[in-house]
């Protein structure tokens, strides 16, 4: 097994050198012309970090616009070295990027940046989430006619639905950056709290500005509460919560994939 172990050591050292620019090139490398292999190893180091930074740049275009390309690439490069992907499927690489942004000191002057990253991460999740048909209208009508048992209704969210609440106006900020290149970006008062639902309708990912109460309601439903308990939770968090408006918003955008009344508990 000595040979296999040597091979393992060699690959382990190579792997360690990829993400650590300070680390010397591992032993055992060579170039045909006797040139320093470190310059050639740099190609791999660059490929690894650049390709992952590019993946993050694709997922977080507005964060990148807000801080500029050079700042973004430096920030993302540090994240890549600290948190390389744990999966071979890169679609969701960057789920932890918003948490990294929270603690990234040089970005402290942009307190809304991490929540904006959260919004963009939710858009990626919504884009690739499982397909599901919206609950049919007749089923909704039937369920909502449950009379006194209406509070017991169980709602199923479309797999793409995510909710976001921020002390900053990240929804307006994000929307302002969806204009074409020449469009003037409207000034946004970033100190206003905002919330949104992020979901996919058909093939399109939507960012729907939504009242805080609607976001609380969706989170409560996701947490397993029935309609009545979720409404109570939402009302406690946002006294202006309106159940009818919220259900209308959810149904209008296909955010519910099921609605049913559980069987009466046998007594």
């Amino acid at each position, binding site marked *: 097994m000595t040979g296999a172990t040597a091979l393992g050591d060699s690959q382990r050292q190579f*792997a360690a050198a990829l993400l650590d620019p300070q680390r010397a090139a591992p032993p055992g490398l060579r170039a045909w012309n006797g040139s320093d292999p470190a310059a050639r190893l740099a190609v791999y180091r660059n490929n690894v970090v650049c390709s992952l930074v590019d993946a993050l740049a694709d997922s977080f275009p507005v964060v990148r616009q807000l801080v500029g390309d050079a700042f973004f690439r430096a920030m993302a490069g540090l994240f890549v070295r600290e948190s390389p992907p744990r999966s071979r499927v890169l679609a969701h690489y960057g789920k932890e990027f918003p948490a990294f942004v929270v603690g990234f000191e040089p970005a402290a002057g942009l307190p809304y940046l991490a929540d904006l990253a959260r919004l963009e991460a939710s858009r990626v999740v919504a*884009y*690739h989430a499982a397909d599901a048909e919206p609950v049919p209208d007749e089923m909704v009508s039937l369920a909502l006619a449950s009379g006194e048992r209406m509070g017991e209704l169980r709602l199923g969210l479309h797999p793409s639905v995510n909710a976001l609440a921020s002390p900053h106006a990240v929804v307006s900020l994000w929307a302002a950056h969806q204009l074409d290149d020449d469009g003037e970006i409207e000034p946004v008062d970033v100190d206003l709290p905002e919330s949104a639902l992020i979901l996919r309708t058909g093939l399109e990912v939507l960012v729907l500005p939504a009242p805080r109460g609607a976001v609380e309601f969706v989170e409560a439903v996701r947490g397993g509460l029935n309609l009545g308990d979720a409404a109570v939770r939402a009302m406690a968090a946002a006294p202006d919560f309106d159940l009818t408006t919220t259900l209308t918003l959810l149904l209008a955008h296909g955010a519910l994939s099921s609605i049913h009344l559980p069987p009466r508990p046998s007594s």
Partner: protein
Amino acid sequence: MSSTPQALNHAATDSPARAGVSDQAAGLPWRAGIGLKPQHFREVLATRPDLGFFEVHAENYMVDGGPFHHFLTQVRAHYALSLHGVGLSIGGIDPLDESHLTRLAALIERYQPASFSEHLAWSSHGDAFYNDLLPVPYDRQTLDRVCEHIDRVQERLGLRMLLENPSTYLEFEASTMSETAFLREVLKRTGCGLLLDVNNVHVSCTNHGHDALAYLRDLPLGEVGEVHLAGFARDQDAAGAPLLIDSHGSPVDEAVWGLYAHVVAKLGAVPTLLERDNDVPALQTLLAEAGRADIMMGAQAEPRRCGHYWGGA
């Protein structure tokens, strides 16, 4: 030595596929194809370009739902598909990731590709994935490991895979054989086919001071099931020698077209992918490159089965 898996690619020159067997086991159509890019999804479906096949990176489609599956399903209804993996880490010292093989099996079941290919490289170590195709030493230990891994892939997926020759920037003191000797041995021991990346041949031979034509002569070209063509970027090493980078971000270089002409002269028509993964241009630009490959193969003039290949989903 593996037991012979059920053949998905019949690539050998004298295999029945060459005689015109028109079922899926015949592999990809003998024409040019291009990579399917999200920015081209709608245009491809609206215009249905005359192409041999589309290729996708398997890992991009390992998502639950949404537009990627929606569009690939529609494209697959009209075109043959090549499924190209970039994440198996066949050259890795770690055991293969069985859950990744399960995801691949599910994609193969769903999309019925005419070919599955992977790389002679590693891309993950421990629990980190590096998203790059990293080099291996060409020695006995690596050979055993790579063959074990390919045996397992072919057994698990129930097909004959194609293995792609790599672009490399470094060599290892531990290497005891040439890349071509290593590939020959892998093909012989596992029965897998060869995905001949002609750009990689040019890049690696330039980077290591080898003669690309000699490299091609040293490979069992009869086992080629697909060819890749792509562009590279130019850099230099510490001694100022040219160092070519396999960037997939520019048109195919004339030197690579020249090598391709040699391959076509030897093989005749062969499924040929124009690869472009960075700075993806307009669909028309990629189609023009594919057209050039088709003309070089003489494929357009010949009423081969592949021109009528409409793989049903």
